[in-house]
């Protein structure tokens, strides 16, 4: 089912957390709501599932305006940031709860709970109380509870935050598999970009209560709308250098000149964003500097290079480069992948 937010506004007392947000999640799509902590992701989610009333604008499920519908009537499955399992019920009762309040027949409830428990691999945990489950197991119980009554929409609020790296990888695949299998429209709230990029069809990147860009993951990475997006996506993060525009040349602070005929002549000063994978020996020479820091990440190594003028660039290289701190380097840039921003941070 398609979800549409029209000029959605949410205020708490006199603090406006979200203002005039517009967002459309297509039917059967999985959308990531990505953004730094406190930007309003959970608030948006709570408004969609009806826990928060909207202070302005509309929320549509399909063509139906649900803005004034209580959460009980929206048929939305939610996995909360804190799981919100009922502590006095065991896993089975937790999962059965939405069916029980819907007054399904006990036999039906049993069948459905076992089906969903199988899907989420928690069949052997059904007797346990939440307090006796690990974070990841609670997560899956919460997911099962959200899915069991076949909701029209699935909302996941940072569902993988508490898992270890391996389980997180498994659960990513698992959630995506379940979402694709059930064809449910889903919104995944996260501040983990890798999660957003690997699991979702599209990403809505939020900043201070606004959506700054809504795009496919690869598009958003390669073609960020502004400096915030470029900065937020990518790990290790992008570095920025101040540059001058002289004729058809870009002059970096260390004096290095780059030919760039496309830029409007009116622009004098700008910022150049350089991702770590766009700087290295494979791109020729011309940028001299000193290795300041090396971080070994197993398969790859991350270098902090201080340029001659004191500004810094980051570079990521396959392991095995024979460098140590203090060594001089002379590397080049991948000119096609440079990202240019004006001083306000907008993409040029």
């Amino acid at each position, binding site marked *: 089912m398609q979800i549409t937010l029209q000029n959605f506004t949410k205020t708490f007392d006199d603090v406006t957390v979200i203002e005039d947000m517009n967002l459309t999640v297509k039917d059967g799509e999985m959308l990531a709501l990505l953004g730094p902590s406190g930007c309003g992701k959970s608030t948006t989610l*709570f408004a969609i*599932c*009806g*826990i928060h009333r909207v202070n302005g604008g509309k929320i549509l499920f399909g063509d139906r305006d649900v803005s004034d519908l*209580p*959460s*009980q009537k*929206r*048929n*939305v*499955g*939610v996995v*909360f*940031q*804190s799981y*919100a*399992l*009922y*502590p*006095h019920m065991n896993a089975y009762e937790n999962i059965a*709860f*939405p069916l*029980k*309040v*819907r007054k399904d027949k006990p036999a039906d409830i049993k069948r459905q709970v076992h089906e969903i428990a199988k899907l989420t691999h928690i069949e052997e945990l059904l007797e346990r109380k939440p307090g006796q489950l690990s974070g990841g197991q609670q997560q899956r119980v919460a997911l099962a*509870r959200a899915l069991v*009554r076949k909701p029209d929409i699935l909302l996941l609020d940072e569902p993988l935050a508490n898992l270890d790296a391996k389980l997180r990888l498994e659960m990513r695949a698992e959630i995506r598999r379940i979402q694709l299998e059930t064809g449910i429209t889903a919104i995944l709230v996260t501040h983990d970009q890798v999660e957003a990029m690997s699991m979702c069809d599209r990403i809505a990147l939020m900043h201070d209560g606004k959506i700054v860009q809504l795009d496919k993951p690869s598009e958003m990475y390669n073609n960020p709308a502004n400096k915030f997006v470029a900065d937020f996506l990518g790990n290790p993060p992008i570095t920025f250098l101040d540059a001058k525009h002289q004729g058809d040349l870009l002059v970096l602070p260390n004096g290095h000149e780059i030919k760039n005929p496309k830029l409007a002549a009116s622009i004098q000063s700008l910022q150049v964003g350089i991702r770590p994978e766009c700087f290295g020996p494979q791109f020729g020479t011309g940028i001299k500097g000193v290795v300041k820091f090396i971080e070994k990440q197993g398969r790859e190594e991350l270098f902090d290079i201080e340029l001659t003028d004191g500004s810094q660039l980051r570079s990521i290289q396959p392991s095995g480069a024979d460098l140590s701190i203090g060594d001089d380097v002379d590397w080049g840039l991948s000119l096609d992948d440079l990202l240019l921003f004006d001083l306000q941070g907008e993409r040029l």
Partner: protein
Amino acid sequence: MKNFNWLALGFLAPALIVITVFFLAPVILTGIFSFTSMSTSTGVTGGEYLLNQSGLRALADKGLNQVTLDQLNNAGYVVDEQGLAALAEKHGTATADEMRKLHDNGQFSARRDMERALKDLKANKIRSTKDRKAAAELFKHSLLNERFEAEANFRVALVEGDIPIEDHEIIVTQAYTGWVWTVDNVKLLFSLPSTLRYAGNTLIYVTLTLIFNIGFGLFLAITTFYLPAKSASTFRAIWFLPRILPPVMYVLLWKWLTWDTGFIATTLSWVGVAPKNWMLDTSTHAWVVVVLINGSFGASLGMILFSSAIKAIPSSILYSSEVDGANRWQQVRYIILPHLRWPILFVTSYQTLSLLTSFEHILLSTEGGPGRATEVWSLAAYHIALDNYGGNLQYGLGATFAVALVIIGIIASLFYLRFFNFNEMVAKPKIEG
């Protein structure tokens, strides 16, 4: 006792002293009193030895044989110094001396014999029959209505009165006017028909008031939870009034409401209902008022505890129940009430115990009436021991009633702990020590 911590004892000492003096001592004393026959007539210190007609009747009831009873009852006559002194006063020393000469230490069981002995006087005749009769009376020697300070003296008197030695014990016991150790109170407790009545009243009182208390407390806590914060706190404050008012004032308000010239009667008289006392009119009315008085008083405790327990429920759980489709009622039933299990247990057991022992509101309102319809156990104990219509305050019996109440209280607490599965709840500490 190498590790004995004197410092800790030092810190605990004040608390221990307070507990001992103000809690343990009264309980133990009550326990002790319950096995005595203390009452106004026995006093609380020692007593004397005095046999009177009612004592004789009691002895007869206890199976003392008729011969001994007659012996005790019928006056015997002994010519002793005491009698002679009295005679000397009335008829002169000469008469007394002659009598001593003739019949010193003479004993006569019947008055006739004594009179005959007086006729033996030759030199100092007592001529008129009437005087002789009076003189005989001077030598009358009976145990009845004579006070003895010490037990030994009484026993001597019994020996002198020729009472068979095997009957002494029972007579001495009967004649003692002070309190004695006894289990009669317990026997009485189990045999009095009113005991059953008090027990029944107490059961009605505690059960109905508890239901009202907990139910109303829950109702208030849950409804105010769903109200906006401001009106909720106003609403809650109203139910604190009974707690804040002095009990006498609070009950007075109820009386004013229910008197035959009170609010209800006056209002209803406008629609033609004859005024009457709506509190003491019938026992049903009395019960309704008693339950309402105590219930409204107690509801605020439950309300405040339940309210704070509801507030302690993580909001995400309530949110989650809503998106899961639970309506208000289901939310209350499946989420809120299970979270209130502990406070409900606490309030129920706490209120049971305090209702069992508290009677001030009943005392101030119905005073146990009409008749003894609302006389509960603790009120009965109070009436028996401290405020008896008959005037004879039976401290011992009252104490027995009180002790029985303590035992009932302990049994009730044990029952609650079992019923609410206390062990399961405390078995696993959240923080491993």
